[in-house]
């Protein structure tokens, strides 16, 4: 059994994996780009090795370099986290070829599920229902796709063949807008995955995105850990996840049925380690296989909180050749968990990513609160990687309790120096529809705006005016002390502009 693990990732997930490794008494090795010398995963690791310049292609995507480091420092296994090299069958194979355990599925399973066309064919053959589309048809040119579009019917989705996480994905409502959207999707797919191929898929309207967590060991055991509700998305990026799903909640029959289908899909590709089967579920509880993510998911903690299973720990045990610690009968969902993804982005300005130095953090804590974070006070948020800075996860006996706790925790959270989407979550959690569990994958885009939410709330406009005035007054008083009498005709706005630069630059 291996004793030293290299974590080929960064940010919160590298820290998350490192924690389980350390608790198992394993030595931890991390890799880092020049932008991440002082990142948390480097500070916490036993060993850390420089990969190269900040861009991922020159650092975190350099599989060969990472394998060479692993061999040189005596690491015996590699955990890829999510993103970067996590779903690259060639990398998984290269690890095995180099005599390293890959903490994830077999390369053949990654390949089978990674090519969405193959994935659909495989699970379809195993008797799992899929969403209509062109995935089985190979890599088609635009003119073929434009012909097939009307046959599948609008609205439909253009999706990247090599994709995931909403990148290279576009929604098409009619034939007219299809050419330009195909272009945009291909361009983004090429940039994100180095592969511009796309396919079409019927858009299931009023759909919910519900996924099942799978664990499979090398002894033929495959179990599921229940579902996660992931319908709250923006531009196909998940924002808030729950376990269980309020749509399934007490329908234990549906849960076990979908769970059994998920296990069957996993078995169809001879699956090993942790994975996730994503379903679209329509309002009549018809469910369609969407895709399988052959890696640890960002949102895995909600499942951990309701099952008490440490998924990363199980991943490691499985990769060490040990059998699962649990049978299907051991798994019972207890209580309710919610995760909010905290991103460095401006919810009041079209969610534009925000970079800069984090001057101050005050983290929520206390009963039932878990924070998986990759940042600290004084750290720089660079533009090179995704904008996820932490995941705030809470547990409660019931959904209502979990919601109240999440509100409480969001209200405690302070991040100064970059904009975050904390206010977005605060407003979302106040929505009637959210409280009643009534939402689909389009809810955030079609039925929610932070500006509108602000209007509905008891307005503190007078208080805000007072506070702004008190701060402005303080600044004017202070600058009055340092400005020469002859120069005091300088306008307030100039002074504020200067203060502004000081504050942002500090």
């Amino acid at each position, binding site marked *: 059994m291996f004793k030293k693990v290299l974590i080929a990732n960064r940010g919160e997930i590298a820290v998350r994996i490192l924690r389980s490794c350390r608790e198992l008494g394993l030595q931890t090795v991390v890799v880092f780009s020049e932008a991440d010398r002082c990142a948390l995963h480097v500070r916490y690791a036993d060993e850390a090795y420089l990969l190269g310049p900040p861009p991922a292609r020159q650092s975190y995507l350099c599989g060969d370099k990472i394998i060479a480091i692993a061999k040189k420092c005596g690491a015996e296994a590699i955990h890829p986290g999510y993103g970067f090299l996590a779903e690259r069958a060639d990398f998984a194979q290269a690890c095995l070829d180099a005599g390293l355990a890959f903490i994830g599925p077999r390369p053949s399973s990654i390949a089978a599920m990674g090519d969405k066309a193959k994935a659909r064919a495989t699970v379809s053959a195993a008797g799992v229902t899929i969403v209509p589309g062109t995935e089985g048809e190979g890599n088609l040119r635009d003119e073929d796709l434009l012909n097939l579009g009307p046959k599948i019917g609008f609205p439909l989705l253009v999706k990247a063949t090599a994709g995931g996480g909403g990148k290279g994905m576009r929604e098409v409502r009619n034939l007219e807008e299809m050419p330009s959207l195909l272009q945009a999707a291909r361009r983004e797919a090429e940039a994100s995955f180095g592969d511009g191929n796309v396919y079409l898929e019927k858009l299931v309207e009023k759909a919910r995105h519900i996924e099942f967590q799978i664990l499979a060991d090398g002894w033929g055991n495959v179990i599921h850990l229940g579902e996660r509700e992931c319908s709250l998305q923006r531009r196909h990026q998940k924002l808030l996840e729950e376990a269980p799903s309020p749509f399934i909640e007490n329908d234990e029959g549906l849960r076990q049925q979908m769970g059994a289908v998920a296990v069957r899909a996993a078995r169809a590709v001879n699956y090993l380690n942790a994975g996730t089967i994503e379903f679209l579920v329509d309002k009549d509880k018809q469910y369609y296989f969407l895709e399988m993510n052959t890696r640890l998911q960002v949102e895995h903690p909600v499942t951990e909180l309701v099952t008490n299973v440490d998924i990363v720990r199980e991943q490691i045990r499985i990769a060490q050749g040990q059998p699962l610690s649990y049978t299907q009968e051991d798994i019972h969902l207890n209580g309710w968990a919610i995760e909010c993804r905290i991103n460095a982005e401006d919810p009041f300005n079209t969610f534009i990513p925000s970079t800069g130095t984090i001057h101050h953090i005050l983290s929520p804590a206390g009963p039932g609160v878990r924070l998986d974070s990759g940042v600290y006070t004084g750290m720089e948020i660079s533009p090179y990687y995704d904008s996820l800075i932490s995941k705030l996860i809470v547990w409660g006996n019931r959904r209502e309790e979990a919601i109240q706790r999440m509100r409480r925790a969001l209200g405690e959270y302070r991040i100064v120096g970059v904009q975050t989407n904390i206010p977005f979550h605060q407003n979302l959690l106040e929505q009637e529809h959210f409280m009643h569990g009534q939402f689909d994958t389009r809810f955030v885009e079609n039925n929610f705006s932070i500006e509108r939410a602000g209007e509905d709330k008891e307005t*503190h406009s007078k208080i805000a005016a007072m506070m702004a005035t*008190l701060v402005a007054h303080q600044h004017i008083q202070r600058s009055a002390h340092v400005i020469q009498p002859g120069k005091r005709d300088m306008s307030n706005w100039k002074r504020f502009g200067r203060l502004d630069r000081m504050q942002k630059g500090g």
Partner: protein
Amino acid sequence: MRYITTIGEKEYLIEIIDQHHVSVDGEVFNVDFTEIKGQLLYSLLINGHSLEALISADNGEWQVLLQGTMYQAQVEDESQKRLKATLGEGTTPSQEFHLKAPMPGLVIAVPVSEDQAVEKGEVLVILESMKMQNELKSPRAGRVCRVRVKEGDNVEQRQTMLCVM
């Protein structure tokens, strides 16, 4: 000191009476206001109620993030404002809009060109940062001028990329 503070449509006449008293539109409040040590966070106790806001200056406006809502406040010295109004400077002139890069990134496309007329909401630049493509839109109708970036350029945060006048 007396100030006129504007948030959205609403104007407040605010007087800082002394360290512990502020009046808003004539109503006097008991306040205890303090900055949380060097953090841009401010704690206000007002008639006993405890409120905390993140307050920063941006382009001469104060941004107040209070309980999940963002307020944009203009604070002006009352006498100055009245003077400006008298001199006819009170009316807002149609200013130039400078499109600044909200973050460092790579310019993916510039779908507009010099002198082109644009509508409010029209995409001016597509900027890639943090693995996302971000469409930067025009906040109002106007005419594009001084285009200073092209596809493939790397831009710094706050760098002006083009203007709409």
